[in-house]
């Protein structure tokens, strides 16, 4: 396999995927620092630690441990890389410099709401009263953490218009499962065994998966021609076998489900419940209380709406709000307050049970609570307005046809995100994926692509309230430039990215022939994989 960056003439990007060998100096191009795997830096005998002599006699492992548990002769690939301390520090520092996050620049990943994580959240999460609290401490010693949980539950209940909230679920999809299990428990409590859940085509992809995992059959219902669900469509699909509907509001097109109250009535009239996927709650914060639109159960994503770290940046959190009739089924334990003291209430006979070890991702709860208290009611409302204003500004600026415009699948007003089609790429030979890769060259994280599935070659863009007008203008300019390039020099777009430290990765080969573990002969494996991939 060639190790030099080959020319792009043959269009084979695999040949260009080069890495320095450990015996080559780490390459630098401007400020792009190349970095091999830590295993490739390893040299036998090199060490970053000096340990004092053992205070106990050394023992021979082969006489102390049964033979079947011994690894045998040490192999580089199953050992720890042998490196010096500065090598480790440089390695992880360089990897962190290759990373791109919302702290580096605009991260308009639609549906994921990559808003800025304020540093004050980190300050409070590091307060010793929180960091040193142990979940097994007696209640009287953890009144502070319990008070924070109780107050956060109250705040989320007030924001969403719910009777109660559980903080246990560790992520949005986990919250969905909690919610659907509560729906099931409710139906069972009134002696019913319902079998189906309705899921609109514009719902989040996790909704049908959650329904299926909870044992329901998923019935997909189409969105109306304007991009929102029509009550008559729900009425046609609704019967006494339907446990409920899982509806995302605003939906994945960024469009508000304006008939939500009517849809809720249709579902309730036949004994069903309404689950709202609240992943997009940042678009209605302080404006709409879902509980008042007939929603029985909704999860929030604290790592989206309430500015806590996201993805690789930290664990998620998916609290679930419920209407009064679902309160008995909340996961156990719940935080209770009486006479100014807080305790954990395990006496919940109708609860769906525990969903997570201890009480949720507590550090994330501290950050979200900090954000809510920092912002206050008016601040949250303004954050919502800012998110919608930014998205609408971007949408209107990007769609202008006379100058590299992009096409909207629906004319309906949208809120916090804007979805475009690949119509502008027609007959250019360029695809949505090429546009995403070209954005990397131009200094932006790509938006969500090919989702929602109901839009051809979808580009789903969500700037969030964190962006300034200048950064949105710069993004729009980049998108227009790509639209022009697709017409005039499509190869530039198809070959992108050309200035990043890695060129186009072969995603198909990676999926067809995954190599998940480093081995000393990995290069040969890669080479044979490339041949098989061809």
């Amino acid at each position, binding site marked *: 396999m060639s190790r030099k960056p080959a020319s792009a003439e043959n269009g084979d990007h695999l040949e260009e995927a080069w890495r320095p060998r450990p015996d080559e100096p780490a390459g630098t191009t401007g400020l792009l620092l190349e970095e091999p795997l830590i295993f490739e830096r390893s040299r036998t005998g090199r060490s970053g630690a000096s340990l004092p002599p053992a205070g106990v006699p050394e023992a021979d492992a082969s006489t102390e441990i049964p033979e079947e548990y011994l690894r045998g002769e040490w192999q580089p690939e199953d050992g720890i890389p042998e490196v010096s301390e500065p090598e480790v520090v440089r390695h992880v520092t360089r990897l962190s410099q290759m990373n791109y996050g919302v702290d580096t620049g605009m991260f308009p990943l639609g549906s994921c709401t990559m808003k800025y994580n304020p540093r004050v959240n980190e300050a409070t999460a590091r307060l010793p009263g929180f960091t040193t609290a142990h979940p097994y401490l007696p209640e009287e010693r953890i009144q502070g953490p319990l008070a924070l949980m109780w107050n956060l539950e109250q705040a989320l209940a007030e924001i969403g218009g719910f009777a109660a909230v559980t903080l246990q679920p560790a992520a949005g999809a986990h919250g969905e499962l909690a919610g659907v299990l509560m729906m099931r428990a409710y139906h069972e409590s009134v002696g019913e065994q319902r079998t189906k859940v309705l899921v609109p085509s514009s719902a989040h992809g996790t909704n049908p998966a959650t329904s299926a995992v909870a044992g329901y059959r998923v019935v997909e219902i189409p969105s109306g021609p304007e991009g929102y669900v029509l009550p008559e469509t729900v009425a046609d699909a609704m019967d006494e076998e339907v446990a409920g509907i899982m509806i995302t509001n605003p939906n994945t097109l960024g469009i508000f489900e304006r008939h939500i109250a009517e849809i809720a009535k249709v579902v309730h009239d036949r004994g069903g419940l309404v689950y709202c996927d609240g992943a997009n709650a940042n678009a209605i914060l302080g404006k709409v209380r879902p509980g008042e639109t007939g929603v029985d159960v909704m999860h929030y994503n604290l790592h989206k709406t309430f500015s806590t770290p996201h993805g690789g940046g930290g664990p998620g959190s998916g609290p679930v709000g419920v209407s009064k009739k679902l309160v008995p089924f909340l996961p156990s334990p719940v935080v209770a307050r009486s006479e100014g003291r807080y305790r954990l209430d395990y006496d919940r006979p109708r609860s769906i049970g525990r969903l997570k070890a201890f009480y949720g991702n507590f550090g994330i709860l501290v950050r979200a609570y900090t954000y809510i208290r920092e912002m206050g009611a008016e601040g949250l409302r303004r954050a919502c307005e800012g998110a919608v204003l930014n998205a609408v500004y971007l949408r209107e600026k990007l769609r202008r046809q006379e100058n590299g415009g992009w096409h909207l699948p629906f004319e309906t007003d949208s809120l916090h995100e804007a979805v475009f089609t690949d119509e502008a790429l027609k007959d250019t030979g360029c*695809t949505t*994926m090429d546009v995403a890769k070209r954005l990397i060259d131009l200094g932006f994280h790509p938006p969500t692509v*090919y989702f929602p*599935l109901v839009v051809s070659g979808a580009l789903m863009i969500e700037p969030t309230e964190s962006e300034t007008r200048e950064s949105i203008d710069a993004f729009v300019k980049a998108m227009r430039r790509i639209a022009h390039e697709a017409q005039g020099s499509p190869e530039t777009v198809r070959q992108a990215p050309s200035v990043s430290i890695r060129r186009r990765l072969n*995603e*198909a080969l990676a*999926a*067809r022939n995954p190599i998940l573990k480093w081995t000393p002969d990995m290069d040969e494996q890669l080479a044979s994989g490339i041949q098989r*991939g061809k």
Partner: protein
Amino acid sequence: MSNIPEDLRYSEEHEWIRPASNHVTIGVTDHAQEQLGDVVFVELPEVGDEITRGAEFGAIESTKAYSELFAPVTGEVTEVNDSLIDAPEMLNKDPYGDGWMIRIAPAEESDIDDLMDAEAYREHIENEK
């Protein structure tokens, strides 16, 4: 415009069907593989499985999306193209040849009569745009 052989029948879900004396062969159309992009995984039923017209019988995963496969006819699976497990890319390279998916013994001959011919399928693609 994608390739639509005249001698095949087509379903609305973008499968092609090649009828023979006692079985039919099923695959996905050139148009479908273009839309899917690089296929990385194909999930197919086993020989002996019964598949039902309109019901799911497998799935295709590409770098873009995961798509379910819906049976164009009812019948028993008599043969499965196992080579797609190791070489899913055949579905992109040769959708009407080595990229075939399954053969089935149809239960109802009338199922096949309900399918589209090449002309009708061409129109179906146009209408979807």
